[in-house]
């Protein structure tokens, strides 16, 4: 969902750019806007704080990292280059998710595998427990009403009122 937000953020950035309103000094020469910087910062984590995305981290250090993103954008770096730079500098913990390589691929592999195993077991359990419904009995209940819910409800209400 972050992806959608980002896409919208960027589109909005362009729309805003085309309108006449005050932007930071930088933006007036066509440089990166705060929104461009935040779009990348949002996908990174503050390297020293704990679990705070870089775009919302209020500390001075984070301010500087956002300035670094801006510098790199001015140099024409792509999003991925900037992210790689952050990983080189501060380690993989700055990424919102670890890259799916080596041992860390396991974080993505295990849940679907377990899901499939779980679904299989659920299926087997349900099959093993399956018995044929006692057909005539259920017919008997539905004589009263063709709607089993109402039948059940009415039956319950009757029992209650007794």
């Amino acid at each position, binding site marked *: 969902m972050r992806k959608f937000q980002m896409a919208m953020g960027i589109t909005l950035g362009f729309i805003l750019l085309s309108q006449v309103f005050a932007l930071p000094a930088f933006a007036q020469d066509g440089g990166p806007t705060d929104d461009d910087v935040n779009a990348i910062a949002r996908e990174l984590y503050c*390297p020293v704080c704990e679990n705070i995305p870089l775009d919302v981290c209020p500390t*001075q250090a984070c301010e*500087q990292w956002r*300035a670094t993103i801006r510098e790199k954008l001015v140099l024409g770096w792509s999003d991925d280059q900037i992210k790689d730079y952050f990983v080189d500098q501060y*380690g*993989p913990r700055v990424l919102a998710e670890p890259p799916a390589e080596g041992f860390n691929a396991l974080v993505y592999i295990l849940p679907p595998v377990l899901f499939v*195993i*779980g679904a299989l077991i*659920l299926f087997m*359990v349900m099959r093993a427990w399956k018995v044929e419904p006692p057909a005539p009995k259920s017919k008997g209940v539905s004589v009263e009403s063709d709607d089993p819910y109402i039948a059940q409800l009415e039956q319950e209400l009757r029992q209650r009122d007794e």
Partner: protein
Amino acid sequence: MEIIDNSTAENNEESPGKTSRPKWGVVLVWLFVLGLLAVLGIGLVRSQRGSIKVGDRVPDLVLTTFEGDEIDFADLHGQIIVVNFWASWCKPCEQEAVELEQAYQLYKDQGVVFLGVDYVDTETEARGYLAKFGVTYPNGPDLGTRISQAFRTLGVPETYIIGPDGRLAAVKIGPYLSLDEIVNQIETVMAEQK
């Protein structure tokens, strides 16, 4: 998931006709619980043990300086290495920056190497910091926080003095309060090594 899987599997065994429950299920559940406890336990030990202790062997590390030179700790064996962790956003670091440079000037010809490791910082600010305090000994970013993780630092500033034998000889957590304090610590290490 193991817990669940197993138990539903166990329930499975209750259906008419089957009575024995699979041993592997019990084994799997125990493996899972004990494995989880092991992970938590090791995590706990790691979070509690603090930085490396005096006398521990310092792993071989490489510092890439802001100038692009690579300094390999392995090449410095036989010398005393003073490793100072700092960052431009760290206010207490500024207290000791000038004194560290002074100490470097005192000892640079006596077989003592000073290295500054810039812990998660931005290059522009870091260079500004070095210029502001006139730091001339080699400094470089802690790429991927590998060096600080090797020392298991808890924050900045911290200073680690490695003896000529490659073992940690002295530690200072927090800023040095005076040049004398640095000198004393280095002198002590030099005396011990002789």
